[in-house]
């Protein structure tokens, strides 16, 4: 009898751990939200929610691309530099109108992604190193194209950055739409299925006859495009192009959002819902610390602790 109940308890424990790993991030968001409702003055206001949504949008969009790269058992460190490159391109091509400028910026991001993907898929370079090289070169290229901060005076860009529909900012709407689109790609398309298969086991995917190289390149091109789009939106919000500082440490925030959201670093599994929640969690945490006048040093230390805790909690899942 005792043995049975013991076993039952053990089972319960593993199930609890599993539940915590899968839904912990949502619980974290809810708890942090409720805590803020109680302790933070003026937290429950449309204005505050708008601000938070606008701030989280670029990180979230970058994190979506990062989730694809991580799902393929890789990582994309170049996203911050792609944002900088995209902001430089926007400011250079704004003379042709905002649409052309945005198109060029996104194409630039896709090109970087293509370079990343080719290095990884064809040459066989480790993702960390390949994207590291483009991280260094991309930031340099952005600074070569636009050496210093430049104001963006374009009504279209300004509307994109600060306008909205029914009180919901465009930035938040775009981010939400992209999250749905990427979730659809991962779950319902052949590309998504292949990506996860490759992330699970590249040799097995190769033996199964999947177009491994094409899918890998596709993942990094998508990641580059999403990062460039995030750069466009960030530029629109700031109404300025700042290639020196835009997107610095963005790769870190994006990886954090993805990992905290429960996507294992070992690939083969992508959780878009979790990634969204992860980005929101980090944003809420930062906002909470800032609203209570804790200095940025504390924010960084807290973020570091959250990353390690999330990876530590998730480490068993990768093995299963």
């Amino acid at each position, binding site marked *: 009898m005792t043995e049975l109940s013991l076993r039952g308890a053990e089972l319960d424990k593993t199930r609890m751990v599993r539940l915590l790993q899968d839904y912990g991030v949502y619980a974290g968001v809810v708890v942090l939200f409720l805590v803020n409702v109680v302790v933070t003055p003026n937290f429950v206001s449309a204005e505050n929610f708008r601000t938070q949504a606008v701030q989280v949008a670029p990180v979230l969009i970058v994190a979506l691309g990062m989730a694809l790269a991580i799902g393929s058992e890789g990582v994309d460190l170049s996203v911050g530099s792609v944002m900088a490159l995209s902001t430089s391109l926007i400011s250079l091509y704004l003379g042709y109108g905002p649409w052309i400028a945005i198109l060029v910026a996104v194409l630039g991001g896709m090109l970087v992604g293509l370079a990343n993907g080719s290095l990884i898929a064809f*040459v066989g370079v480790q993702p960390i190193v390949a994207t*590291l090289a483009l991280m*260094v*070169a991309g930031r340099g290229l952005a600074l070569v194209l636009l*050496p210093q901060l430049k104001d963006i005076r374009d009504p279209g860009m300004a509307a994109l950055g600060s306008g909205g529909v029914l009180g919901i900012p465009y930035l938040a709407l775009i981010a939400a739409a992209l999250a749905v689109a990427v979730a659809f790609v991962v779950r319902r398309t052949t590309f998504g299925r292949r990506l996860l298969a490759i992330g699970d086991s590249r040799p097995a995917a190769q033996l199964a006859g999947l177009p491994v190289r094409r899918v890998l390149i596709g993942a990094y091109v998508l990641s580059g495009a999403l990062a460039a789009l995030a750069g466009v939106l960030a530029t629109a919000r700031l109404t300025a192009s700042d290639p020196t500082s835009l997107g610095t440490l963005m790769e870190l925030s994006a990886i954090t959002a993805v990992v905290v959201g429960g996507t294992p670093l070992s690939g083969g599994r992508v959780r878009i819902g979790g990634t969204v929640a992860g980005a929101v969690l980090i944003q809420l945490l930062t906002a909470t610390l800032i609203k209570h006048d804790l200095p940025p*040093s504390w924010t960084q230390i807290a973020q570091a602790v959250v*990353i390690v805790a999330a*990876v530590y909690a998730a*480490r068993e899942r990768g093995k299963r």
Partner: protein
Amino acid sequence: MTATRTETTVAGPLADDEPLGASRGERLTALAQQHGALVALLALSAVASVGFDSFLTGDNLENMAVSSAFLAVVALGMTFVIVTGGIDLSVGSLFALGGVLAAWGSQYGTLVALALPLAVCGLIGLVNGLLIARARLAPFIVTLAAMLLARGVLLAVTDEGSTTYLVDESAFFARLGQEKLLGVGLPVWITALLFVAGAVVLRRTRFGQYVYAVGGNEDAAALMGAPVARTKVAVYTLSGLCAGFAGALNAAWLVSGVTILGSGMELEAIAAVVIGGTLLSGGFGFISGSLVGVLLLKVIQNVINQIGSLDSAYQQVVSGGFLALVVVAQTWLGRRRRMV
């Protein structure tokens, strides 16, 4: 083509000729891998000394040597980490933190100025190592978190980056960075000593052999009886110590703990190590290569600075492009090696 085919079809003694020919190719690729960076360094230096009058002057060389010294010390620690197949992204922040702590500590004497950064950065490296080796977390994510943590501690120590601690110029600690021996700055001599020590440790000690074994194949190393976890903890601690010491040395040189230093330094260090011929997949690498890698990066930087019309941002483009080129070449050479 036909000759080789007949050789392979003939079994027995003739087939023994194959490995001989292969080993020549193997030796060539190994040579290119080991000394490619050195050749590039010599070629670039030769071109630079012909092209720019100011390149081969004592001042310029001394300047380059001193400014390479700090990155070189960081790259030294990084080499050990990369040979085990890991990566340490926290070194840039640890370098900055080490500098600030050293400058702050210098008011209590040289001993504190050196011990404090070593203790704090070594401790962060130790925690990195424990999380990676014992808890089996991915190195890049752990050290990314450590990078944030160290940056946060740095901000906390300096009132959110608004305070810059100065080193008293007459103190012994400042002289460590300022003094010259035989016309060359003391940091250069210290770095040279550290590199000799590092090369001996990696090549000639049991610990060094464990480092190679862990990087070559962790499971095999464990079966062989190598203390895998302890070796990993040791290399990350060593990397933290190196970064902290480089930061302290830099603070002594600048006579202040500059808070904005070190961002991007982890990338430079990794680039230098990789350009020097150490394989990122672990198990293969050497200390002298990292020194060559650092010098090559600094010469590129110097040349770009000498071409006055070029923006310094080009340096990043060139470094990044160069890194990509080296990695592609390495992967290609590695594959050839495995094939032959």
